């Protein structure tokens, strides 16, 4: 049986997402696929403690990367806009590092940088080059009789973008500082 949950995680909340997916599996639901921005499709399964990990790749992942991660005991089961989802039963893990994709601070920081570079920076560019100019035009009535609709729309977009940029910017910086040696 399949069931879809709606849960929104910000760009920088991937560690919380991993934890949430682990809890779901403990409750007997394993993730099948994720559809942005917030739709998680699960399949019912035997409850089991399974560790979930995500990696973020800004380029196409190569066959040798997938092979290597699988050699390390990870099951790859879905991907979505750069995020790759892996899982491994906790019973197969004998050291703490065995339950991690990244075993040192440096490689964790690099993942944060990949996310910032290919997701947060484009978001900021769209904000300044599209959201702000359009909002200004709408406020100034340049968009004709329906200007108020555009004002509302770009006003909401403005708030969402400001929130996302500030929240993710601060949180990614925090994660980076935590893992920076």
């Amino acid at each position, binding site marked *: 049986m399949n069931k879809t949950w709606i849960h929104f995680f910000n760009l920088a909340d991937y560690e919380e997402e991993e934890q949430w997916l682990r809890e779901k599996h403990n409750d007997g639901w394993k993730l099948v696929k994720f559809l942005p921005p917030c739709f998680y499709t699960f399949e019912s399964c035997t409850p089991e403690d399974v560790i979930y990990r995500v*990696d973020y790749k800004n380029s196409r992942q190569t*066959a040798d990367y997938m092979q*290597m*991660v699988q050699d390390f005991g990870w099951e790859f089961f879905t991907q979505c806009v750069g995020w790759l989802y892996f899982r491994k039963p906790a019973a197969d893990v004998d050291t703490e590092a065995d339950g991690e994709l990244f*075993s040192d601070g440096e490689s964790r920081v*690099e993942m944060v940088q990949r996310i910032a570079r290919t997701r947060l920076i484009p978001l900021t560019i769209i904000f300044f080059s599209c959201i702000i100019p359009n909002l200004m035009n709408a406020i100034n009535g340049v968009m004709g009789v329906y200007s108020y609709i555009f004002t509302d729309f770009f006003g909401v977009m403005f708030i969402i973008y400001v929130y996302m940029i500030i929240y993710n910017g601060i949180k990614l910086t925090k994660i980076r500082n935590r893992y920076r040696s």
Partner: protein
Amino acid sequence: MDEKIRRIYVPMTESGFYILFCLQTPQHGYGISQQVRKLTGGAVTLGAGTMYGTLSKMEKDGLIAFYNEEEKRKLYQLTGLGREVLELEIKRIERLYKNSKGESIDE
């Protein structure tokens, strides 16, 4: 060895050191992790993401080179530059070890 390589790799991370050390004979990522586990009695475990990232970087910087491919697994081997970096690092570790035992190094 150019200044950039020296700045990035000397001193290097523990993962970096073990990966270079193991690549004195050609191996793939998972083989390296198994060897490191054995060498260190399980004290050092390398994650798949860390392994892949380090191998890609070292290949780009010319410390290791592609050797062969076996069933989608890429095998790498140390290059001349990689050996130079490894030797520098081993000397540094020996110095640390001697100093930690209270010995000083003669000039």
